[in-house]
Structures are given as C-alpha cells and as structure tokens.
C-alpha cells in the first residue's frame, strides 16, 4: 500500500511527458508550468507570500497579453517550510513529476543554495529571486549557464550604504561607530563589507565595538545596554523584519537613538515600517521597497495594484519577483519558445524597462548572470506615510567600480 502513491504519481508524470512530447507540436493552450519553491510558513512566511503575490500579478498580466503564443504561464508554488532538504526535494519533484519547465526560486539564501545544486544537475533554467548572498553569483565556482539571480546583492547594498554613511558621517562628524547584527552569514558578511566601504570613503571612522545577537533572538536588551555603554556617535545594523522592529522598540526605551545616529539598511520595507508603532524620526535606511522610490508612475501603479488585490503593500521580495517574471516572459517571447538554452541566451545581458530601475531600466548582467541597475538609495525615516524622505540615489558607476575591485581581491575574476 505504501508504494502506490509515488508509483501513481510517477505514472502520471510519465503520462504528462509522453502525452505532450517536446517534438514541436505544442498544443496551443498548453500552459507553461513554472515551479516556485519558497517559504510560506514559520517566521519568514512573508517572504513566500509577498513573492507569490507579486508573481501572480505579473503572470496574470503576461497571460492577459496573450502569453507565449497563446500559452499561459501557470505557477506551481510549494512550501518548503524553510528546510533546505525539502526545498531540494520540491525542486526535483517540480521538474521531474510536475512538468515544470522553469523555476523561480523564491527560497531564502540557504534553501536557494540547495535549489541551486539541484538545477546544476538537472539543467533547468532557474531565476533566484530572493537570495542576496553575493557569492551565489559573484563566486565563479557557483556559476553555471542556467541559473540567474534577480535580486539585490549584498555587496551592492554595502557599497551604497558605505558611500551614503560616509557622507553623513563627514557632515555631522560621526567618528565613533558600533555595529549590531544577527550572528549568521548574512549579518557577518554585510556588516564587514559595510564597515570596509565606510572606512574606504571616510578613513577617520573608527568602529569601537560590535555586538552579535543570535538570529531570531527574542530580546535585545543586553545588546542595547552594551551599545549604550560604548557611547557611539553612530550605530549600524543589518537586523531585519521582526528582529529589527524588536530592536528599535527596545532601543527607543533606552533612549539610544537620542545620542547615536542609527543606520539600518533594512528598515525601509513596508512590513517593517508599518509595524513600528512610533517610528523614530531620522533613522537612516537603505531602500528595500518603497512605492515612491523610484518616484515613477509604474512603481506607484504596482504598489496600488498589489494593495488592491492583497490589502497590504509590496516587500523587497515583491519587486524582485515581479522583475523575474517580466524578464522570463520577455526572454521566452524573444526566444520564441521555452527551450532552456535559447531562453538563457536571451536572458544573459537582457535590459528591460522597469519601474524598479535606477534609470527606468534593469539589466541582467551577462558576465555573472545577476541583476544590476535596480534602484538603490538611502533616506531618512519620518513617522508617517511615506515613511522615508530625502532619498539619495546611489551611483551605479561607483558600485560597479568597487564591486570589480572587491571581486579582484577575492580572486573571483
């Protein structure tokens, strides 16, 4: 009894393959299945939900425009519950049993690496939409022809952040810095890179102390008192989502922000901004997603449509997911089909108009198959909508130059 189910599933899979062979006579309405392994439960469920929502908006638009010669896209979304092994299994199953031709991998970074290894073997064209870990595309050993990243990248954020923070530091003479970041790979890497570029742009800055709460630590009191003992002029943090909210609430009670400027790269995302009851004025933040940065009609329309359908605002993951669907749709139309090699060839180097681009466009850089040219900038928080003002767009020319240097130092050219 116990083995009937997989066998039946396997037969169904086999039938699907033999029923609709790849010989060229695609039935006109046969949908293009796109697998989306992601996280829909637990602490980071918002990652999967806001990715799926944005994808659905874009897929509906693509299908309404006639799809690919009448073939609509159909999303197959599955919950890995944040378990990398489950993400790997789901990816395999989507490819082998469910007939998915492409993957939009919406896993967080650990699940993303697990999916990455699966598609390295299967050769399925995959767009990672949520992994910001630089090494995923920057390290040549991780690179292969069928995997692309449509997400912001840690190193870009750090260069932009270091540049912005150095200007503020110079203007306000902030030399004593401390950092607080979650104790895991993203927290360590991002903080180290930020500090490196902050010092690069402003050599008189000193980091006099750091504190590393555990990931998802429920309480930050001890970290906050440590920060207040160090009497820094400025504090940097790459805490995010619920952890950042907890930190800000508790730090406000200690009056920490009265004495120190606060730079929180992950503050400007609506889920975070709206959850802080008394958002402190004057926190410096990078843009995760803001409906008015870039301040173009397309961006505002996207947020409005998203809000109309899901009664909430998009996240950083949403714009990335939406962009991934647009890129994939255009690449398929340009390639005139779904052959992975042909679509991948079109994707590499593709530049599309996008409301999320720094200059109205985003580019899938060919050399390392990662998204560049997206809007990136820093601003200052205010307590009410639009929550952030004085957004300073970062200069991509600087980012490209320092990123290339960083890669050279890592031996990744």
């Amino acid at each position, binding site marked *: 009894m116990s083995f009937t189910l997989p066998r039946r599933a396997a037969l169904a899979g086999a039938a699907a393959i033999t029923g609709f062979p790849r010989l060229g006579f695609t039935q006109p309405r046969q949908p293009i299945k796109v697998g989306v392994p992601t996280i829909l439960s637990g602490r980071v*469920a918002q990652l999967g939900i806001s990715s799926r929502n944005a994808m659905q908006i874009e897929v509906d638009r693509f299908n309404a425009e006639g799809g690919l010669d009448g073939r609509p896209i159909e999303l197959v979304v599955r919950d890995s519950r944040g378990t990398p092994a489950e993400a790997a299994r789901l990816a395999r199953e989507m490819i082998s049993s469910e007939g998915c031709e492409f993957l939009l991998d919406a896993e967080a970074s650990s699940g993303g690496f697990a999916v990455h290894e699966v598609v390295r073997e299967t050769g399925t064209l995959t767009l990672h939409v949520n992994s910001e870990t630089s090494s995923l595309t920057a390290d040549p050993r991780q690179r292969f022809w069928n995997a692309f990243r449509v997400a912001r990248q840690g190193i870009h954020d750090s260069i932009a952040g270091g540049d912005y923070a150095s200007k503020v530091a110079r203007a306000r003479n902030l030399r004593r810095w401390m950092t607080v970041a979650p104790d895991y790979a993203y927290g360590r890497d991002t903080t180290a890179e930020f500090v490196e570029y902050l010092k690069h742009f402003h050599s008189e800055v000193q980091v006099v102390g750091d504190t590393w709460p555990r990931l998802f630590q429920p309480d930050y*009191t001890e970290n906050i*008192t440590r920060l207040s003992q160090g009497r820094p002029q400025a504090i940097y943090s790459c805490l995010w989502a619920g952890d950042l909210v907890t930190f800000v609430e508790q730090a406000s009670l200690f009056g920490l922000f009265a004495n120190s400027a606060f730079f929180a790269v992950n503050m400007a995302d609506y889920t975070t901004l709206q959850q802080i009851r008394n958002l402190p004025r004057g926190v410096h933040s990078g843009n995760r997603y803001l409906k008015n940065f870039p301040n173009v009609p397309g961006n505002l329309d996207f947020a409005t449509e998203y809000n109309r359908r899901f009664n909430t605002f998009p996240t950083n993951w949403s714009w990335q997911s939406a962009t991934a669907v647009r890129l994939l749709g255009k690449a398929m139309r340009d390639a005139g089909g779904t052959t992975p090699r042909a679509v991948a060839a079109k994707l590499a180097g593709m530049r599309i108009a996008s409301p999320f681009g720094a200059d109205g466009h985003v580019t899938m850089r060919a050399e390392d198959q990662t998204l560049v040219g997206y809007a990136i900038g820093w601003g200052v928080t205010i307590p009410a909508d639009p929550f952030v003002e004085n957004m300073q767009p970062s200069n991509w020319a600087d980012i490209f130059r320092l990123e290339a240097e960083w890669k050279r130092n890592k031996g990744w050219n």
Partner: protein
Amino acid sequence: MELTELAECVTSLSCLVTQSAAGLTIGMLLFLVASGLTLIFGVLGLVNFAHGSFYMMGAYFALAAYGVTESFAVAVLAGIVGAALLGLVFERFLLSRIYGQDVLMQLLVCYGIILILDDAVKIIWGADFRSMGVPDSLRHPPFIIAGGVVPYFYAILFAITAVIAAVLAFGMGRTRFGRIVRAAAINPGMVGALGINTTLVYASVFAIGAGLAGAAGALSAPIRSVVAGAGVSILIESFIVTVIGGMGSIGGALAASLILGFTRSFGSIGFPLFVEGAMFIIMALVLILRPSGLGGRRGS
C-alpha cells in the same frame, strides 16, 4: 573575551545600574515562563514541551485585545486569561489522557500542539510578524539613576512581574489551594482519598502554568515582535532555568532566572560571543555538582 571592559563596568556605578536593571527585567520575564513550566512538572509530572506556545498565544491574545481596547491592562489580562483557558482546554481534552505515560507520549502530544498552534496563529493573525508597540501612556523618558539608564517601561515590567511572583509565592505557600497542590505533587492518591477532586487540582495547575507563560508573552508583546514560532526559543531558556533551579522548585526557578538574566546583561559586556555558551556551562556545572538543581528536593 573583553574582561577589562567587564571590570570597568562593575566598578562604574552607571554601568552597574543599567546592566542590573536589564538583567532583572530579562530574568523576571523568563521566570514567569519557567515557573509555569516547573509548576506543571512538579504537580502533574508532565514535561510541557508546548509551554512556549502558551507564551506565544499570550502575546497574540494581548495584541488582539489591545487592538480593540487600546488598553495595556486589558491586553495583559486578556493574555493571561486567554492562555489559561487555552491551557485548560488542552489539559482536559488532550494532556489528561496521557498522565502517567512515558515521556515519549508527552513529547508527541506536545509536538502536535506546537504544530497546530503555530499554524492556527498564522491563519488567524496572518503570516507576518506583528508588533504592539509600547502604549503612548507608558512611553516616558528613561529614569537616569547614578548615570545608569533604566527605561520607564522596564521598571513597570519589573514591578508587574514582581507582583505576580509574590502572589504566586503567597498562593503556593500560604493558601489552602497551595497546600493541596503541594500535597498533590507528593502524593496524589492521598489527596484524592481525602475527598479532594484531583482532576480539578490538575486542571487548575495547568491553567495557572499556561497563564504564567501567557502573562510573560503579553507583558513582552510591546517590546518584542509577536510572531508564529516565537515559543521555541523561549522554551529552551526555560528548560535551562528549570534544570538549574531544580524541577518543580519555584524558588529555584526564580534564582536560576535571575542568574541567567545577569549572565545575559553582564555577559554582553564581558564575553559577548559566549553568552549562550556560558548559560550551557552553568547548566552543566549544576548537573555535575548538584544534579537536583539549586532548589531541588529529590535526587534526579
């Protein structure tokens, strides 16, 4: 190790005040959760692996009540009562069926409860984390004592937790109910033979334990984000407290909670990368030197 910083801190009054106040508040919140765990174990002989879930539910109930009434007092009350009622339901319909069974059964039932509650919370309140925020009426500048910073809200938290702890100590030590509970922990058969309804005693002890966890969840809802799955990290620390303090000992739980609170607050100055490790080392030391815990009566 940054022991010179630690030495500087303990010799400076301002640092001492700040860190002690922080340690006390962290410790007392932990005590509320751990005392419920140890109480349930002491009387019912049950390891409530789902205890963290009642902490989480307390926070969500408080959040919901606060959303309607905008009153922190009502919110805390809702957290306590809600968690206690939920505990009562679980005790009556699920856990009472496995009293006297081995740890495996307890573990599995609690695991099932954790899975269900984490999902139920997601369905009712949404998948995203929520934050209650400190109510405006309680948002005042921190006290500055000898240069040390003590947040106003932390002082209130400490006061409330201290009152709850005092009521708990009085209730267990000086009232008829407390005497029955303590007797039931030692010899339930005898208590039953005296005509006391042990079923009722068990149910109320479980409800009190769950209510204590709910109180901690509700009290910390303004300063910690409320999120599904928040119970587990709280649970591990409560386990450590229970082991250090001794299973079933409320006094031991208080001492152990404060020890951990101070380890956290001063550890973050003196050995920031080893705070978690230090807690485990304290636990291992207690297990080796005094296996029944600081306040334990029986050998393990």
